[in-house]
């Protein structure tokens, strides 16, 4: 019987696809803001939520979401107040979360071993109710992250400038970290809390090498995340290997391949640009040119590639050594 006919594998495949798309979406903003390890820290905080769930005998996912969101808001409040310098506050929060999670799991009589399915993922045990929660949270992440993408981009690229646009920068900063917290917790059953940051960051890094521009990079990262997650899970079930690790290693393979690919694409792009250059550079010296071009010389200046031409008697004149070339 084909493995894909099993309901638990279908659920795992769907969960992989959802997380594979959503994690790099929010990861794009995180990488742009140079906070690539935020997901890793939030993963530590989420462990406290899992520990609390084990101790109280309730479902881990809602607790992990709640605790992780509170942690994310605290981190952002520390950053905005300027008190997170030196990262000491963040370290206390992250490792405090991890220690509290392990402690509560041990109170529940499970020890650190009870946490391992959340630390490294356990796709094959995803229940229908888990899938509904993951699906709902993924839709929330995508709607907000894509719907507000111009504003969140402006904020991630240049926070001071975004403030001078009158954008609600403080609110959007909280939106980004809360979405990151939700992403971390939805991914804990697929790649696990220790590897979730990789799924948020590495597809983005690979896509930014391959695709030109922020939005193309974001869509590219979503595509790479989807392929790596679904491909990694399928490879893991047929080869009987750990799915979370397989997914992350495939994203790294994408990243490694993206370097030479980026060089090829860059050369191709510039060749096609040169072919369509409306002002092709023809280096033909202009004879008998007594006038000296310069700012305020009376001739209009136009930018042409990496230099300036002067419009002179219907021609483009460019200074070259001791003469002018007609371009």
């Amino acid at each position: 019987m084909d493995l894909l006919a099993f309901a638990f594998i279908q659920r795992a495949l769907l969960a992989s696809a959802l997380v594979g798309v959503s994690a790099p979406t929010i990861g794009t903003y995180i990488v742009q803001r140079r906070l690539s390890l935020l997901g890793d820290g939030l993963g530590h905080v989420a462990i406290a939520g899992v520990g609390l769930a084990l101790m109280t005998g309730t479902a881990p996912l809602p607790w992990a979401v709640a605790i992780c969101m509170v942690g994310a808001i605290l981190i952002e409040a520390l950053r905005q107040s300027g008190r997170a310098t030196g990262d000491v506050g963040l370290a206390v929060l992250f490792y405090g979360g991890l220690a509290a999670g392990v402690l509560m799991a041990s109170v529940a009589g499970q020890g650190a071993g009870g946490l391992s399915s959340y630390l490294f993922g356990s796709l094959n045990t995803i229940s229908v109710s888990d899938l509904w929660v993951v699906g709902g949270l993924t839709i929330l992440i995508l709607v907000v992250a894509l719907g507000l993408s111009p504003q969140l981009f402006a904020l991630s690229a240049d926070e001071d400038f975004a403030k001078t646009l009158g954008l609600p920068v403080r609110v959007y900063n909280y939106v980004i970290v809360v979405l990151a917290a939700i992403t971390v917790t939805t991914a804990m059953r697929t790649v696990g809390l220790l590897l979730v940051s990789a799924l948020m960051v590495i597809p983005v890094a690979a896509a930014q090498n391959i695709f030109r521009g922020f939005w193309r990079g974001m869509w590219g990262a979503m595509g790479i995340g989807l392929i790596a997650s679904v491909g990694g899970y399928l490879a893991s079930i047929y080869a009987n290997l750990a799915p979370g690790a397989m997914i992350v290693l495939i994203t790294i393979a994408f990243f490694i391949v993206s370097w030479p690919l980026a060089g090829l694409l860059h050369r191709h792009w510039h060749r096609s640009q040169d072919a369509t250059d409306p002002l092709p550079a023809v280096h033909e010296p202009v004879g008998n040119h007594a006038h000296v071009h310069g700012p305020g010389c009376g001739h209009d200046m136009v930018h042409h590639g990496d230099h300036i031409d002067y419009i002179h008697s219907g021609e483009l004149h460019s200074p070259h050594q001791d003469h002018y070339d007609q371009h």
Partner: protein
Amino acid sequence: MLMNLIEVDSLSLSLGGLPILKDISFAVAEGQTIGLLGANGSGKSTLVKAILGLYRRQLGTVSLLGQPLERFSAWDKIGYVPQRASVSLHSTTVMEVVASGTLAKRPVGWIRSRQRAAALEALALVGLADQAHELYLHLSGGQQQRVLIARGIVNHPRLLIMDEPFAGVDIANQGEIAATLTRSEATLLVVLHETEALSSSIDRCLVLREGRLVHDGPLTPPSAHDPHETPAPQHTHLLTGMEPQWTS
């Protein structure tokens, strides 16, 4: 009487416990071009950011376009060009950078073709329309600076505040950008290290030293140079710390 687009009254600001701005007061009337000068660390960039409300705790009052800063909402009428060194625009095209300037007063909504057209127009004004789809980081320092200027002027602001817009820009391009700025008819407050490119346009000059406003007046005394010649920069004293000879 012309409206004051900037009014600063008794502005003081401390960062990390250190006083950076000390009891600064001045006003900028509509249509003026104001040069803000001072040595490194004198508080020029901090003053610009304080005027724009980028610090939360500051003493004194600031009004923009006649509205107190706390209630100011006409952000589409203000253009800001930060120092190039202060922005991080990884993996972003020139068009994306400039189009982000059109988001003033638009807390939600995607960028539409009309906004992209405005961005292209602003890029043409700084001579970079043919670089719209190039990556920002692949441009030279001077070109990156011009992209930030295009982003600042994309909404045709009434008031344009710029922090060292000519840093890293070669002389030929400085002249071109200065001409673009003076054509824009915006009121300008410009932090400058070198005044050459804009010297003929500057109506008034503010000089900061150690966080205090030590001069508010002409760049050079009217009698000190031939009005038909380009005035020579008169601010070398700022780097030496000596008193300017022409302090009013």
